[in-house]
């Protein structure tokens, strides 16, 4: 039955397609509908992930502390062998100074289940105490497979849900664009490198977030708030998106007949989900505060390493850490973050729309990345996600952001010995972006023929090209040359400066873009009314 229906649909669409076929390289990939296209691309994406997982992980063979891989394995060991209330508590059997659990309970549960999987095949890898620094062929393989399975079970379906909702809502999009968009979403090099190379489980929290976004786009707000709460309970970094979710849902509720009823329903859903996830720790305030204090490691300072955000970049001139106490820095950074979030929030409260929501996600996550307390290089994944969701609308900026996002993580990935996958995935992304007859290959035709010579425009392209070129050269310099002894972190600092400049410009651009939606959306609605 389903097939017949599909065939009918195909026959109807043939008219439109027949015109396009002539220049259509990917007709064979897309003609079976979004499901088959998605299946094909996702198998390829999975293959790429497996291939990346062959490479070293962070802290491979570097005792005594190892890296994120050991942290995740240690959490499996702890959650598997200790009772739930002991997970976040310092004790003789749980030394919190050695990779103590510092993510919310959903991560702990996930570690528990993955620990069960590991124990089934290789009990030594998760035994209490004795398994510290456990690095074997089988152990690595099993750990890698836990990430792969989480990716396949959560991130991929979420992307499918999003692609389905997004591309069925806008009828004008070509099938090619849909395939291109799916490829951009599933083959995000930063995410693959961090999850399957460096070793983390960002795919879970980001997948839950994408599912929540798709639920909002399909008008299922309760499901969305439930999913986003789960994302928050998996990684507290998901809070980067919270302002956008909050403002969009609030804006929508305010436009209903009974706003309080709507807000209450959403609030109850969020609270209910939180209660279920946090249930073991809700019996005493001590336990709850214990967990919460683990989640906010303020003692680690306002920034770490060389992250391309405002605090770290400006610390070249202003020594924040020396000038202010941790407490006042907390306050300053919170104020700065809220202030930068505010414009996009206000826009969403005033005129909630699907497009505006996606821009809002981008803006609020950028605000957090640039101004919040304790940001890590890896946090660039968070702004990159909404940027990739918007890839069809913001083609060139998206490429731009991906390039500098990757670049900002280059020193980190070099330390992890992931240089080869870095370049391979970078090239793969650019190739897919520029796929023949794809979306990326077309912008030149789309641009109107402007015979006038625009000085500002040419200056801008010159500047961009110059920075692009110098960052390419920096890659080589970083790999081949030693920095002068006086400034051992000179190259990292330059990379940070370039990336911060790009991110700041990008964030400004998307904020302006979101606000300019305000004019369009009202005119659109007016048109509809007429």
């Amino acid at each position, binding site marked *: 039955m389903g097939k017949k229906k599909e065939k009918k649909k195909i*026959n109807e669409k043939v008219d439109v397609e027949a015109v396009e076929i002539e220049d259509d390289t990917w*007709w064979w990939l897309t003609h079976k509908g979004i499901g088959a296209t998605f299946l094909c691309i996702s*198998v390829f994406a999975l293959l*790429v992930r497996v291939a990346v997982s062959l490479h070293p992980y962070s802290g491979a063979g570097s005792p005594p502390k190892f890296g994120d891989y050991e942290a995740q394995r240690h959490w499996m060991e702890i959650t598997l062998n200790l009772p739930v209330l002991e997970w976040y508590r310092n004790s003789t059997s749980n030394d919190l100074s050695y990779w103590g659990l510092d993510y919310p309970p959903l991560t702990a549960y996930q570690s528990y289940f993955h620990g069960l999987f590991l124990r089934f095949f290789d009990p030594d890898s998760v035994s209490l105490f004795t398994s510290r620094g456990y690095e074997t062929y089988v152990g690595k393989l099993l750990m890698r497979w836990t990430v792969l399975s989480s990716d396949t079970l959560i991130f991929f379906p979420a992307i499918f849900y999003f692609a389905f909702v997004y591309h069925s809502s806008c009828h004008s999009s070509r099938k090619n664009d849909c395939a291109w968009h799916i490829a951009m979403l599933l083959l995000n090099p930063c995410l693959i490198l961090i999850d399957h190379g460096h070793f983390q489980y960002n795919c879970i929290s980001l997948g839950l977030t994408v599912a929540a976004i798709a639920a909002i786009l399909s008008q299922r707000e309760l499901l969305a708030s439930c999913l986003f709460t789960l994302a928050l309970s998996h990684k507290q970094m998901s809070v980067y998106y919270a302002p956008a979710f909050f403002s969009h849902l609030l804006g929508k509720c305010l436009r209903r007949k009974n706003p309080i009823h709507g807000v209450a329903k959403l609030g109850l859903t969020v609270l209910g989900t939180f209660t279920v996830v946090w249930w073991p720790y809700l019996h005493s305030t001590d336990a709850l505060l214990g967990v919460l204090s683990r989640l906010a490691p303020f003692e680690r300072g306002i920034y770490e390493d060389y992250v391309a955000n405002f605090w770290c970049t400006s610390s070249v001139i202003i020594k924040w850490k020396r000038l202010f106490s941790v407490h006042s820095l907390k306050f300053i950074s919170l104020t700065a973050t809220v202030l930068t979030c505010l414009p996009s929030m206000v826009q969403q409260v005033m005129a909630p729309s699907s497009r505006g929501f996606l821009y809002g996600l981008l803006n609020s996550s950028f605000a957090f990345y640039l101004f919040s307390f304790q940001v890590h290089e890896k946090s660039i994944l968070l702004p990159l996600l909404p940027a990739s969701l918007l890839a069809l609308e913001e083609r060139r900026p998206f490429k731009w952001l991906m390039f500098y996002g990757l670049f900002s993580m280059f020193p980190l990935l070099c330390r992890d010995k992931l240089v080869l*996958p870095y370049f391979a995935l970078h090239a793969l992304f650019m190739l897919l972006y520029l796929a*023949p007859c794809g979306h990326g290959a077309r912008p030149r035709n789309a641009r109107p023929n402007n015979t006038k010579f625009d000085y500002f425009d040419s200056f801008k392209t010159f500047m961009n090209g110059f920075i692009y070129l110098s960052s390419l050269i920096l890659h080589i310099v970083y790999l081949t040359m030693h920095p002068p002894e006086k400034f051992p972190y000179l190259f990292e600092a330059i990379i940070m400066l370039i990336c911060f400049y790009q991110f700041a410009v990008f964030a400004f651009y998307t904020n302006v873009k979101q606000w300019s939606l305000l004019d369009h959306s009202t005119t659109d609605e007016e048109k509809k009314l007429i």
Partner: protein
Amino acid sequence: MESSSSTPQLLWFFAIAACVKLLLIPAYYSTDFEVHRHWLALTHSLPLSNWYADETSPWTLDYPPFFACFERFLSIFAHYIDPQIVDLHNGLNYRANSAIYFLRISVILSDLWLLYGVYRLTKNADVKRRYLIWVLIVWSPALVIVDHLHFQYNGFLLGWLLLSISFLQEGKDLMGGFLFAVLLCFKHLFAVAAPVYFVYLLRHYCWKGLVRGFSRLSVLGAVVVAVFAAAYGPFLYHGQIQQVFNRMFPFGRGLCHAYWAPNFWVFYIILDKVFSFFLKKFGFSIQIPAASFTGGLVGDSSPFAVLPKISPSTTLIMVLLALSPCFIKAWTNPQPRMVARWIAYAYTCGFLFGWHVHEKASLHFVIPLAIVAVQSLEDAKHYFMLSIVSCYSLFPLLYEAQEYPIKVLLLLLHSILMWLGFSTKFTRASAPNTTVTAKKKGAQSKSIESSSPAAEKGGFTIGWVGKSYLLGLLLVEIWGQFLHPYLLGDKFPFVPLMLISTYCAFGIMYSWIWQLRCIISTA
């Protein structure tokens, strides 16, 4: 016009594959890696006269001279990267990253020659056909498994074969023959198709009257002799020619490789086992030979209990017999468009009936068949089955757990791409005339309506036999990977491999019969 614009797109296909291959660099490699590394060292540090005499490592040079020269060429660069790679003694079993990266990347770059072959073959094909061929060859999972994981240079060698075919298809027989002769001096295993080349070139190129024919024959002969002289002349000069042939044709290897290639002899062995089993039951005294097939290496004594011993000459006669219909066709009706089929058929015969066949040899016919796979619906259906079976038969090459998802995903991706590509091609292409004529917008809807029932009739579907066969493939895999170790433990460790080769042998036999039928039936 079109060909010039297609080059960047072909390069795009290649680059995508190259990125994945780059990512696969740290994966498992077989002893062939050390073989090729040793050959680099050997050709770099020894004079030409000692190439085939050296015994520093058990991996002596056993490819023809051109391949040795190719290794010599690569060793120049290897020397710059890391001199230890090409050190004859200190380099033994050298596995530093520099060596792995250099050799792996050399394979990826040598694939450019395959790409050139594909480019030449498809430059005049229409756009849709072209893309499908590219997907089938440039993204071939079998090539990734054999060349980029297991480690060999098959892509480079197949490039020569495809180039040769492309010249033959254009009617440039002399060039085609020349390239094939060069290929033979790279790897002599390709010689299975030599009789077909001989018959075809004799009939199509030389059979043009007495004087012209004789002059052409002498030109062709001179070209071939020149190629072989260039390859073997230096060794003849150094008095090494006997040694070269001893190395290239080692005796004492058995009928089957340690892991049986899925060919005809699998059935022969199994029949022998069954006979001996029953005869024993009925009270006959049967001597079970000590060197059993499941043990791996086979010595001089007959490994068969009941059935007659097979000698290399028997296999040669069987191959030639199987090829004879192809000879007759090539002689009576030499058509350039059939060349690819004939050559692929020759390699299929060699694979099925040959002596000491390696499972990797299935590449020799799967890759050339990709060219004809897009020609008709029947071809596509056949290729779909054959390609999956031959790729699956390569699975035992990668036996470690780390590569398991890679090989499964490669095959899965290939199957999906083939299914998508073929099913689109053969629902759309069933009415090519209508779409061409219906360029006017008004006529379009009508023509599509009229073509849709035809499309449904001629669509790309696999019959229930094919479906159940593929399902069986899945069951064989599940048995071998999960059920067998779970139920039987370490008992009968050879059974999963035997199952794979037996089951795949059915598929290859089917492909052989199909190809034979196709060759006989074409007018």
